[in-house]
């Protein structure tokens, strides 16, 4: 559990970070909270030769009200999301889910931007951002661009970010007063979800799944069924449609499909306020 040797650069601004990425290309990696990257490096599953530390960019840690949306800086730590009043009022699902991630150490180090950029299908925040139909803001040598969440997660641990781009902000439409639910099915408090479901009923219903494929995904069949008037139970039966769930010690694909159905149903019921399920 000792990483290979690497050079370390501490970036003082986004521009500095982007130019370090541009200079070192594929060999460089941004380091945010380090809670996904450093374990990979210690297991020597990742061996970047340059680490560009963006963890000190405090001006990228914020939650701002921009009118219809809430803008969250990419370097905002989970703990700061969990206790943020604005989120608790206008996007309670984000604050709630931030409080379910890992353990207190993870929540004090890990960043929302790091989680999204890592693009792990088993992570919680990507599903929330998908269900909310958020927008991601990236900065690279060619300037800034926005990417819809639905187009962000491309493959296993792969996102739409170019190697020289940095994620700077996440924009999420407010869901004040909307029904929502997050079902995180796991064995221990600090574990990743075996299967997770984020549901937001805000006029339209957004449903996204955790750990049901190689990327964070939306439960599109469920969303469509609900849009065309299906009952919750009927829509939930489509939860695993089109998914290719992974197999591991906790769950094989068949069990994951079953869980997805149960959890989507529970999420939708809870979002409807029909039952107060366990949270």
């Amino acid at each position: 559990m000792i990483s290979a040797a690497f050079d370390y650069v501490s970036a003082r601004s986004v521009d500095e970070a982007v130019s370090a990425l541009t200079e070192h290309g594929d060999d460089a990696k941004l380091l945010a909270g380090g809670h996904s990257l450093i374990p990979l490096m210690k297991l020597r599953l990742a061996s970047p030769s340059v680490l560009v530390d963006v963890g000190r960019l405090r001006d990228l840690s914020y939650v701002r009200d921009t009118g219809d949306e809430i803008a969250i800086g990419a370097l905002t730590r989970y703990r700061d999301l969990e206790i943020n009043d604005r989120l608790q009022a206008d996007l309670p699902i984000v604050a709630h889910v931030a409080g379910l991630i890992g353990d207190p150490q993870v929540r004090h180090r890990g960043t929302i931007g790091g989680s999204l950029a890592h693009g792990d299908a088993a992570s919680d925040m990507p599903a929330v951002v998908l269900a909310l139909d958020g927008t991601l803001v990236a900065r690279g040598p060619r300037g800034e661009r926005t990417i819809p969440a639905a187009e962000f997660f491309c493959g296993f641990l792969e996102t739409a970010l170019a190697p020289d781009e940095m994620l700077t902000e996440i924009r999420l439409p407010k869901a004040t007063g909307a029904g929502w639910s997050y079902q995180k099915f796991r064995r221990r408090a600090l574990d990743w979800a075996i299967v997770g479901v984020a549901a937001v009923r805000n006029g339209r219903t957004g449903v996204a799944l955790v750990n049901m494929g190689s990327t964070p995904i939306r439960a599109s069949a469920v969303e469509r069924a609900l849009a065309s008037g299906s009952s919750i139970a009927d829509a939930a039966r489509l939860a695993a449609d089109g998914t290719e769930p992974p197999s591991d010690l906790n769950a094989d694909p068949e069990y994951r499909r079953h869980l997805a159905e149960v959890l989507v149903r529970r999420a939708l019921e809870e979002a409807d306020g029909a039952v107060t399920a366990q949270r």
Partner: protein
Amino acid sequence: MTTTEIPAADGKGLVKIGQPLLRREDEPILRGEARFTDDVPIPGALYMEVLRSSHAHARIRSIDTDAARTSPGVVAVYTGADLAGEWVGQIPVLIAPDPAPLLAPRWGPIATDKVNYVGEPVAVVVAETRARAADALEAIVVDYDVLPAVVSPEDACTDRVVIHDELGTNKAYTWEVVITPESVDAAFADAAYTVKQRHIQQRCLPAPMETRAVCAVPDPMGGGGFTLYSSTQMAHLLRTLLAMTVGVPEQKLRVIAPNVGGGFGSKLQTYPEESLCLALARRLKRPVRWVEDRSECGVAMIHGRGQVQDIELAADSDGKITAVRVHLLGDLGAHCKLFTPGIPVIGGPFYHGCYDVPAFAITITSVYTNLPPTDAYRGAGRPEATYAIERAVDGLAAEMNMDPAEIRRRNFIPPFENGHQTVCMVPFDSGNYEPALDQALELAGYEQLRKEQADRRASGSTKHLGVGIASYVEVCGYAPSRMMAAGGGKFSLWGTSVVRFLPTGKIVVTTGSHPHGQGHETSWAQIVSDRLGVPYEDVEVLHSDTAIAPYGVLTGGSRSLSVEGAALSVTCDKVIAKAKTLAAHLLEAAEGDLEFNDGSFNVKGTPSRALPITGLAHTAAFDAHLLPEGMEPNLSAETTWDPPNFTFPFGTHIAVVEVDEETGAVALVKFVAVDDCGNQLNPVIVEGQVHGGLVQGIGQALFELAAYDDDGNPLSPTLADYLVPSAAEVPSFTLGSTVTPSPSNPLGTKGVGESGAIGSAPAVINAVVDALAPLGVTNVIMPASPMTVWRTIQAARAAAPNAKENGR
């Protein structure tokens, strides 16, 4: 918890046996000031990293170390062949089944021509820094000729692949104890009810918080000896075994176990890295250190459990058990470590549980597999035995439609205070099983729970409530040398202690115990303060350093208080006796006229003229001319104590679970443990030991599995995949106790280090099965993960389509 407000000492600084005390060890540990092996600063030390086999079963064709040798910072690279000359002897097996012959393969600290499990050392790199050593490790190329692997004990039995050519079979031994075979057969023939079950004791990782660490240091004064720091539970025994195998003369080797962050049996061992660091320090004439990675720990440390258990009960029409028959299949792993073949055997006599069973038969076959060796792990054989019998007793209750509490009540061995010869070899010390059951039922609110369960079932809820009971009796206090020998022990264990008064009246105790989380420094000082009437703070307890402490064999098997602590109590008596003779001499009184209270001697009836023992200690040291003729100066004594019998703690645990039928998730909502460990020295430590044990047993029941694929590759070597439960996964425990003093030692204690881990797993699984009984479920294998439980429910539904269909 009953006690966090601790009334420390009284006005004179005295503490009493039985008084709750916080542990003096804890503050430096909690503050991060305590040093562990890898923290010990050793100038000039080299770092060793170990290349481990990536195959479960393979021949080593060749190892190319050229690139590693020239890697920056590397001092040396060695293969097993390079080091073959370093070893002078084979590591012995210390408990073997007796009288069955044991077939055991030879093994050394590092493989030479063949590897037998993933994780077996094949080469080492020694470098100036740990990172350099880790880099060089990647440059070693091993050419393996991969052989088919044997990963299940059932497969091993077939000898389809024989792992050790020289043995010609994978079977290590078959040990059979049949007490009157005719009566067993007759009992089954006449039985009104029979139960037949198979249980799997999955392999568990001990996963101590501190992984292992070693540092071997050549004598800096040039004396030709070595100091070896190791995170071990047995400094003295380690020294003896290293002397026998690495060839450093025992008197030239000092072994120190600094603070040790848990062991649970895993550090009751000599490991390859200890031999390697010592041999390399000898060869390179420099200190050599090594620390185990967390993911290395899962493959380089022994595993616990690993058995397949077939158990059968026969009972008469009243539910009285008339016979127990057991076939055990033990998975020893790749070879025998110190106690490997003995673990299933230690559990053997406990398969009748705390029940009065007239006929008993057990056959144990143990086999080699291409997995890491199994060995002692919290409970070592008794959790396995308890699990099987307690699951079977619940099976009998279900068969008879009888309350599981009632069936236990009908079968308990009646109370006894001084000896009960069980059907299988062992004479129990003292026992009174029913009050522990009663108290547990009371604390759990059993009647109310059964009512709630009935209501819940009637309501058609998909959240099923289950209540599980497990009563146990186990064995601790490993020492009685005659009994150990009769049970297959190839070594003796006894207790040692030395009490020395210093001239200022303070006391240094040295003990043969090797605490690694048990709190002996607190407990031993408590014994001395109570016995000698000296302030608790004036007693210093030293241990775990072979240059300081008397030879103590090991700390394990919940033996320390009942053997090492009892030895200390005996030593205190000797000190008092000597002090009394001196006091009588100085007071010009007859010894018989003296009384000893709170640390002072006085003539009965004249308490005003009292001689404190601390003053007598000063006199004995510095005014030795005042001593009676023939008395040696100094107030000190020592004892090596070999008790007459083991101790047999017992108790009843009750688990309450809620099982989500839709997902298979098990929530443990309540856990009650009533344990009888005889007299309690310090109830705070008793509770702490029970808490830890419970979480470990609950871990085995619901979370933990050292998983392997069909080729013998580990699937759960890290703590991301091997699920050790935390405080968040367990309810706040409800603890109770009964006190049945043991006649086996002067303290009347029994031991409580393992009880928690022994009663909890069967209580939890009994609760899960109880919850799902209406769905037709009769067994759930451990760990009862959500997927396992869900699949079990599906299978029960498929098998009994007309079992209650719960509907949405």
